């Protein structure tokens, strides 16, 4: 199935679950990555995060996410995985990523679901820009801290 894995609308869990449902599976694990209003140590300016804008190197991100889902099938035979990553401006509280894994046994469903999110964070060429209530924006890293910026050091 070659449906796009990167989408620009609100993620639908029902649709994803329908993709993995199977009479051979006894457990289905779900992970939603949701936009929160900032890291515990607020290091970004502004009155609070209103949303995060996700952008991607689409061709590579699509391919890499598809590869990760295929790896699940190889590592956990019988497991069925589906995922979508949302791009564009995602408001606080909304999901930026949804992952579902159905497997014959619940242990593998949990393991494989975790595998997918950890692999996504390591491998997908996707970036985040925080939007603040005061109208400012900040590129942030994987932990939600301002991405390094500024002029290159003098040689």
């Amino acid at each position, binding site marked *: 199935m070659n449906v796009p894995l990167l989408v620009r609308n609100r993620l639908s869990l029902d649709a994803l679950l329908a993709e993995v449902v199977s009479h051979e599976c006894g457990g289905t694990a779900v992970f939603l990555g949701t936009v929160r209003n900032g890291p515990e140590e607020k290091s970004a300016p502004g009155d609070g995060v209103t949303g995060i804008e996700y952008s991607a190197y689409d061709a590579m991100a699509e391919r890499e996410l598809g590869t990760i889902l295929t790896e699940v099938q190889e590592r956990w035979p019988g497991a069925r995985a589906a995922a979508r990553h949302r791009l564009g401006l995602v408001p606080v509280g909304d999901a930026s990523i949804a992952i579902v894994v159905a497997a014959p046994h619940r242990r593998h469903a949990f393991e494989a679901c975790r595998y997918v999110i950890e692999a996504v964070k390591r491998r997908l060429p996707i970036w985040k820009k925080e939007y603040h209530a005061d109208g400012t924006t900040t590129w*942030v890293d994987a932990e939600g801290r301002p*991405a390094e910026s500024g*002029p290159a050091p003098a040689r």
Partner: protein
Amino acid sequence: MVSIRVQLFAQYAEQVGRNVVDVEVAAPATVGALVARLRADHPAASIPATPLVAVNLTQARPADPVSAGDDVALLPPLAGG
């Protein structure tokens, strides 16, 4: 010399002011030489000495070869999920 088209993303694209740049390097070129030339061309952008580079949708290392027509992208630290 060979001209290689490099896609830029996120903060790199903002700092350079473009989504794509053409970089001239001596052939046969490596990823490392390409990055060095790009950094020299855009000193105001804070592109690190060894950024993540993808060639034809796969992460590449500085010693890897790169030629005109390859799909090359400079990737800021990944922040997906």
